[in-house]
Structure formats: C-alpha cells, structure tokens
C-alpha cells in the first residue's frame, strides 16, 4: 500500500450514513415497541412498489402473507421480546401488486434504552433464489417419496396379480386332470396310456409350481404360511403318494424309500407333502440320473426327520448357503423353474418349528428336514 492512497481512503471512509440507510442493498425497518414502523428505507419500499411514507405507521405483519402474520404474532414477536434478537427468519412479503417476495429477516432491539424508547430494527434480505432452491429440494424429496409409495403399490399389485393368476390357473388344471382320469378308464393303446401318464405328470408339476408361487406371493403380502395341524391321521400315506406322483413324472429314475414312522406326528399333512415334493423334485432334477434318489423318513427321540439325497457333483459350500433364498437358481439355469421350491420347503420347515439343512459331498447331496413331533 503506498502513501499517496492514504488520503483517498480516509476520504472514502467519510460515509454518508443517510444514503447508506436509504439505498443499502437490503431493506431496513425500524419499528416502535408496539411494532408500528417509524422508518423504512427506500430499498424496502421499492421492493413493495410503494414509498417509505406509505409504510409509516403500519406494522410489519400487515405486509406479510396470512401464514407469515400468524408466525409473526405467535413466534417472531414473543421471541424478540424475550431474547432481544432473531436471525434468518424466512417470511413472505406481499407487494402492492400482490406479488409475493420471499425474504429473510434479522431483527434486534436497542437494549439499554428506556422501555418507552425501545425500538426494533429489522434488516430484510431478498431470498427468492435461496427459497427457490429450498423449494426445489422439498419438491425433489416429495417426488422421491411419491415414487417410493407408487413403487410399493405397484409391487403389491404385482403380487396380488400373481396370487389371483395362480388361483385361477388351478381351475383349468383341475379340469385337465379330471379329463386324464376319465381317459385312463377308457381302453387306450400303449401309446395313449403313456401320453396320459406324461400329461398327468405335467399337470402335477404345474400344480406344484402354482402352490409355490402362491405361497411366495402370500408371504410377500404378509399372509405367511398357515398350518392346519393334524396329529391323528398317519403321515406315511401322504409321503407315499408324493413319491408315487414323482415316480410318474420321472419313471426312468429310481427312488428308494425307507419309512419308519412309529409315533404320531402333529403336522400339516398337505404342507409336509409339499415339502417332500419340492425336495424330491429338486433331487430328481439335479441328481445324477444313474444313481437312485433316497427318501428316508423316521421318528425318533421326539423328532420327525425326512432326508432326501441324491448322487452327483457336490454343491460348493458358497452355493449351499444360498439355496434356500427365493428365486435362487444356482448355476443350472436352463433346467430349473423359478427357484422357489427349496425356499418354500424351508418356509414350511420353519412354520413347523423345524429346520431344513443341506449337506453335500462327493458321495451325496442330502436335504434334511427335522421337526418336533408335538407342536
């Protein structure tokens, strides 16, 4: 800094405070202790499209929107009285032409003066840009929330649709199934017999798929798996029936069964049948075709254990962990269905207070279902 400049700076510091007040880049207002405006600068009056004289004697809330008036009376004025100052209050002014001007207001009181002389000074800043930015943020948040809500509704609708579709698909399938039973009573050629058997297997598979999809959709809709416990009817005929149904689907594969069910089992027979059907279907699809699938069902030590095992390539540990997740289809994408069978089986196990675990080594892959005999 050089000497010649010093007098210039000194001269510049002689400020015309009157002009600064009137034309400052913010609005200045002074009110008396009752809130009546005693002085308003030209900047502020200009924003509203009036002259400073027009505003003298009016109160700040008279210049605000209705919401602003209420806020001023309930919050702004009391806080100012108690604390002596208030910063960055967002308000909206209403101009002479009814335009709304978003502003930020700072205010303080001239402490120490006698109460009668107490004045309130306001500095008012236009905040259209900032308020616009805030409004954009709020709008964006609202839009995001609306999207989430609508996606939730969409997904619920989708699951309801699946449930209704699955439900309605059962009717024509039942009809086809009955037709096949009727045909089976006719005298058919060897080929006709073979065709009806294969068709029965297809109907069975379609029904199993619908059962699984419906259970999944129901689970997603919050219904969960409900059980109809029956401790009196023997379980073995249900298990035998499932095995014979799956034998008809895969007649070339050998299924070896061993049942030792000597105690009453309190369970949902249809559900346990579905569990076995899913496990057995899985074993027949993925096991080595030249090795038998074993089904072992025993009661001992207060538990029912159903184990289904097949030969073939062992399943890696990392894959085993994910097998029970819905829609998980391992590496074998072409052969598999939706990947719901094992998931539903584990849900059925869970609903019975039991467990379903998978073990796999070079000898066999085994799924073991265990549940307590009494619920």
């Amino acid at each position, binding site marked *: 800094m050089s000497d010649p400049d010093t007098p210039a700076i000194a001269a510049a510091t002689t400020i015309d405070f009157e002009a600064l007040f009137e034309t400052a880049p913010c609005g200045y207002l002074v009110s008396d202790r009752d809130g009546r405006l005693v002085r308003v600068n030209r900047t502020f009056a200009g924003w509203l499209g009036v002259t400073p004289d027009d505003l003298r004697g009016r109160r700040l809330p008279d210049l605000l929107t209705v919401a602003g008036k209420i806020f001023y009376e309930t919050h702004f004025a009391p806080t100012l009285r108690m604390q002596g100052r208030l910063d960055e209050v967002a308000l909206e002014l209403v101009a002479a032409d009814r335009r709304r001007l978003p502003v930020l207001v700072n205010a303080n009181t001239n402490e120490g003066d006698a109460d009668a002389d107490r004045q309130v000074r306001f500095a008012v800043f236009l905040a259209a840009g900032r308020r616009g930015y805030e409004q954009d943020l709020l709008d964006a948040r609202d839009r995001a929330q609306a999207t989430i809500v609508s996606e939730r509704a969409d997904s619920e609708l989708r699951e309801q649709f699946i449930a209704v579709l699955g439900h309605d698909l059962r009717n024509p399938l*039942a*009809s*086809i199934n*009955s*037709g096949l*039973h*009727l045909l089976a009573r006719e005298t058919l050629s060897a080929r006709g017999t073979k065709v009806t058997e294969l068709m029965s297997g297809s109907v069975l598979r379609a029904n199993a798929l619908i059962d699984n999809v419906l259970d999944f959709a129901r689970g997603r809709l919050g219904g969960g798996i409900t059980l109809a416990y029956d401790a009196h009817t023997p379980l073995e005929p249900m298990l035998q029936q499932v095995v014979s149904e799956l034998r008809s689907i895969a007649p070339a594969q050998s299924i070896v069964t061993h049942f030792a069910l000597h105690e009453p089992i309190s369970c949902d027979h*249809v559900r346990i049948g579905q569990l076995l059907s899913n496990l057995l279907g899985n074993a027949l699809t993925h096991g080595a075709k030249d090795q038998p699938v074993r089904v072992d069902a025993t009661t001992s030590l207060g538990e029912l254990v159903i184990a289904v095992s097949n030969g073939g390539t062992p399943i890696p540990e990392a894959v085993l962990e994910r097998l029970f997740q819905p829609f998980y289809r391992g590496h074998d994408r072409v052969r598999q269905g939706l990947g719901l069978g094992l998931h539903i089986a584990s849900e059925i196990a869970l609903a019975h207070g039991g467990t379903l675990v998978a073990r796999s080594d070079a000898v066999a892959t085994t799924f073991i279902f265990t549940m307590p005999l009494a619920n």
Partner: protein
Amino acid sequence: MTDEFHTMTVLIVEDDALVRMHGVGIFEDAGFRVLDADSADEALVILSDGGKIHLMFSDVDMPGTMDGLALARVVHERWPRIHLLMTSGHHRLRDDDVPGPGRFVPKPWQANGLLDEARALIQA
C-alpha cells in the same frame, strides 16, 4: 368294484364338466347311483323332486346365486338326513366348517380317500 354302496344315491354338485364327470366315475365305480348338477340351483331342483338322496358331494366355489357352502346350509336345514361332503381346490376347510356332521375333502381327489370319507359319513 364293490356293492358296499349299491343302495346309496349321491348327488354331485360341481360346475366344471370334466371334474364332475371324474367324480361321477369314482362314485359309480364304487356302486353308487349318481345324480349330478352343475350349480346349486340345479341341485335344489333335483333335491326338491323328492327322490331319496343319501349323500351330497359338492364343490365350494360355484357360479350362480349360491355357493357350495350356502347350498350345504340350505340342505342341512331342509333335508337334515342327507350327509354332506364338501370339496375345494382353493379353500381348505375344517370338517367343522361344514354344516351339521359334514366333512371336507381337498382337491385333487384320490378315489380311495374320497370313498373313505363317504364311508365314514354314511356309517356314522
């Protein structure tokens, strides 16, 4: 084939023609005399004819003015001696849900299981 049921008449109520024919076949093979209806309304017409019917075997979901359970309630009220066996592929009823000392058998039926339920009802 057995003549265990040869003096018995069953009324089968089912709206799907193939499913109804399947049911008719199972009961006929067991020796029943079989009447069939494709709706609750037609069933009531047959029942009102006054012929002796021992067992009504009815689906739950049916189009028309009345579903199977409503039909079962009417039958239990007006003809309490008729045994009621209900069936459905969608609903899993308990025997208690069927009016009177009725029973429920889920679809799809196994011929033996279906006849076991019919026998249990008739002999009760």
